[in-house]
């Protein structure tokens, strides 16, 4: 019984790692609501992640919270390199590969004020001694800070859908 449960857990973890690694940018037709889908995602270190703009009427970015990018608060591992996709047209994609374990928070430049943020968790803390989460608040208002999905939820479910 115990071995079977352990095997199931390992299989579940492998399933999470093998899931498609893609985050899409979405929006309602009138531009009233915009979001990342999923808003939270788990990937393994070294896994490639693709951001794809599937909002036919808008441009979006995926931009990491890093002091190296527009002096934003540090919300990625200190040894990691942040990214900025620049504006993506509809159906345009941008790929990154994250090697450093930990939590990566990111946002969409023109829509950050509207709460368009997301979170990536790379690796599990119990598997990586250098797993790191930085959560500087900087200039982020409370409503944006509240929009990030919980790390525990991302670890347990693999992906967290946007609310609503």
């Amino acid at each position, binding site marked *: 019984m115990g071995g079977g449960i352990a095997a199931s857990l390992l299989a579940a973890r492998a399933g999470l790692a093998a899931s498609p690694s893609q985050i899409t940018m979405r929006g309602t037709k009138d531009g009233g609501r915009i979001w990342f889908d999923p808003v939270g995602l788990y990937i393994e270190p070294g896994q490639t992640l693709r951001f794809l703009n599937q909002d036919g009427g808008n441009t979006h970015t995926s931009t990491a919270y890093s002091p190296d990018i527009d002096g934003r608060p540090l919300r990625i591992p200190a040894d990691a390199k942040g990214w900025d996709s620049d*504006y993506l047209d*509809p159906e345009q994609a941008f790929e990154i590969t994250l090697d450093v374990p930990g939590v990566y928070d990111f946002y969409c430049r*023109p829509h950050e004020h509207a709460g368009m943020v997301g979170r990536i968790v790379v690796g599990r803390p119990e598997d990586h001694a250098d797993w790191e989460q930085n959560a500087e608040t900087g200039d982020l208002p409370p409503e944006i800070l509240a929009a990030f999905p919980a790390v525990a939820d991302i670890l347990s479910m693999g992906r967290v859908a946007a609310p609503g």
Partner: protein
Amino acid sequence: MRSMFLIAAATALAAAPALAEGNLVAPPPAPFAKVSELVPLPDFLPGLGTLYVDPASLPAGPFLGYDHDGKLAATIYMIPVSDLNPDKSFAGLAVGAETVTSVDVYYNAGHAGVEVPHEHIVLWHDAGAKERVAK
């Protein structure tokens, strides 16, 4: 009361400054410029069309929206939600054409060029205009 409001609204539209006839077909004359060449937005926006604006009129506009054949479909104003207050007003905004068949007003979370929450106020210039720019 309702009929008085409609008469007042029609009178207000008739009194609004109309842009030169050259803007009925894209591209409109200067100082209007293509929005996609000013800010990172797609050339054609489903629901609005290909947009042109005089940059000096931002954020309110008017924006001129053209269909796939270059015919003027709509005049659009973009009013920041924060400007909808007792201390701010927008008067004498020009219209792209004198015929207005319907008006839509809706919230937009923001986009390149108007990166704050705002209201889109869309004046459709003929009955089929909305459908022609829907996609």
